């Protein structure tokens, strides 16, 4: 017995040298990464963007390769990282062998923390022997995810800086939105997809930006998650503002007489969210949606959001994408038809 205790006493410090103190991820699982994390595999786009923000040189690859128009916003050496596929979610395109071949010290996923994903994390961790941490991807939980991620990868200072900045930005957006009088809040419809008939109810990850802004989502009472609604239902809601992420739908809204019957089209208040290099308003559901919140705040509540959107974009890109967009890039992002009121 005493021998065993002695063994433990000797063994423990050795164990310490190989492993950090364990972290608890959002699903309550204990994560024990090696003391020095040099290579991180991000299992989905939201995780990629966060790892890229705090430790770009540790990211082993993207889940989906950059398209040329996306790649112009990041340093070519990062844009050229290999495409490894997703490990989680509906796409489930990553081959575990590809992940193993990338030799990560840590696998990270950010997004939903529901039981099926927690089980997937546990199973991949068991099969590969690589620690797999899962963090809550809601926009207001992102500062916390950044800090936890920083602890795991050993980039606490950088993570803290971004988390604190993000917290201030979110608080600023909340405060501005909170000052909007009730009668100045337009009824908003968020239309996705080429026909604009996909939308999200209260609690959908797709409309988190609207919820952060305290905006009135006309589809609030349909069930959470992505759904298709009949156009008659949209006409019944008669939104004052339509926001979309789909350029095809944005163009269609002006010529289709059915959409023409909505107040939003009559008053020319249909806006298209920018989508480069990552979408602003809805997807991927990562920190990139902060820009969507500033943008939507500006088009919904112009007097409370009398901000310099170009400066916001530049600052966000500098912090999270490590490169400020050029003047021409900013012009292109914000000058795309439909992004801002004329």
């Amino acid at each position, binding site marked *: 017995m005493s021998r065993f205790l002695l063994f433990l006493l000797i063994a423990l410090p050795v164990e310490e040298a190989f492993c950090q103190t364990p972290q608890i991820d959002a699903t309550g699982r204990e994560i024990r990464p090696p003391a020095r994390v040099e290579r991180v595999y991000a299992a989905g786009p939201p995780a990629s963007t966060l790892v890229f923000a705090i430790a770009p040189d540790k990211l082993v690859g993207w889940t989906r390769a950059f398209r040329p128009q996306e790649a112009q916003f990041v340093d070519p050496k990062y844009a050229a990282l290999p495409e490894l596929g997703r490990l989680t979610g509906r796409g489930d395109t990553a081959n575990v062998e590809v992940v193993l071949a990338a030799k990560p010290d840590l696998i990270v996923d950010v997004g939903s923390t529901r039981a099926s994903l927690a089980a997937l994390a546990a199973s991949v961790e068991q099969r590969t022997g690589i620690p797999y941490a899962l963090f809550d991807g809601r926009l207001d939980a992102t500062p916390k995810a950044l800090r936890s991620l920083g602890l795991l990868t050993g980039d606490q200072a950088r993570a803290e800086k971004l988390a604190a900045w993000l917290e201030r930005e979110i608080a600023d957006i909340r405060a501005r939105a909170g000052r909007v009088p009730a009668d100045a809040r337009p009824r908003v419809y968020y239309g996705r997809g080429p026909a604009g*008939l996909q939308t999200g109810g209260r609690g959908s990850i797709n409309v988190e930006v609207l919820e952060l802004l305290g905006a009135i989502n006309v589809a609030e009472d349909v069930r959470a998650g992505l759904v298709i609604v009949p156009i008659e*239902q949209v006409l019944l809601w008669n939104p004052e503002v339509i926001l979309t992420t789909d350029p095809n739908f944005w163009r269609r809204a002006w010529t289709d007489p059915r959409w023409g019957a909505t107040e939003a089209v009559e008053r020319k208040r249909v806006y298209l969210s920018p989508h480069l290099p990552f979408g602003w308003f809805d997807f991927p559901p990562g920190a990139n949606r902060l820009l969507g919140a500033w943008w939507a705040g500006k088009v919904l509540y112009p007097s409370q959001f009398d901000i310099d959107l170009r400066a916001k974009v530049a600052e966000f890109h500098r912090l999270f994408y490590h490169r400020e967009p050029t003047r021409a890039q900013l012009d292109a992002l914000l000058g795309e038809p439909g992004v801002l009121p004329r």
Partner: protein
Amino acid sequence: MNARPVSYVATVAVLFALAVLAFGVGRYPVSVGEIFSLLASKLTGSEHALPANVETVILQVRGPRILAAVVVGAALAAAGTAYQGMFRNPLVSPDILGVSGGAALGAVLAIFLSLDILMTQALAFAGGLVAVGLVYAVGSRLRGHDPLLALVLTGVIIGTLLGSAIALLKYLADPYNQLPAITYWLLGSLASITPRDLSAAAPLDLAGLVPMLLLRWRINLLALPDDEARALGVDTRRLRIMVVACATLMTAAAVAISGIIGWVGLLIPHAARLLVGPDFGRLLPLAMIMGAAFMLGVDTLCRTIAPIEIPPGVLTALIGTPFFLWLFAFARRSW
């Protein structure tokens, strides 16, 4: 006592009643009075005092959608009827030669490339035609087999190939944006029908229907063994190409605007056959009316029973499965 005229009259009456009902119901409240005053003002050319949205709902939303349901239902039922007769097989549906698979691949490719709706429809339509063309070209070159069997088997095999191509595109698609759009397209829906869609699809469906109607008596002979048909002076090969071309044109045009809607082309020909028997000349018009009524009924449910759209394929399967089982268990009518 002849049951046939009764069947036609009854189904036309049902279709008409459903159309009237479909104009009257929906998420947007429109009263019967408003419908009639709109109708009156359109007929007399006078002004009406209705809110602008009421006119939009009736003329731009419900009208095109009702017509689309009628066109799609009739086209799928007609194609199914023709194929079931030609293949002498009760389990055949319009997509047996790969038209739906080809259309789906075309549409999925368009969504994958972020093309707009018009291009999605065009690629779906073209995909359907190309797939069947390919199946026919390959199937008719397989010598030494029953030509129909060769065609069906080629259809199944190429259909599987198309399915894998679709799976590959789904696998590569952006999971937040493109994948839901692909999934919704594959489920089928009349939710985004516009008058323009209808004006493109309806003439194509008509172009497929007219030759089929003109040849309806001769198509009966395709149900006979080839040598017997030939003895009666029918060039079965040419007639078969004709039927396949017409059925494909109709199905591809329908699927391009509606997405994949199963069961209509399988179920309705059986239901019609129960009423009027296997003669193609009598069967085709009745199947079309029944297909139109069935699709219209289903679509009206899809857009009214919940604040969200219900995919029509779900309802057609819910209705189709028990009906089909009942048919096989109890209906003894030969065909």
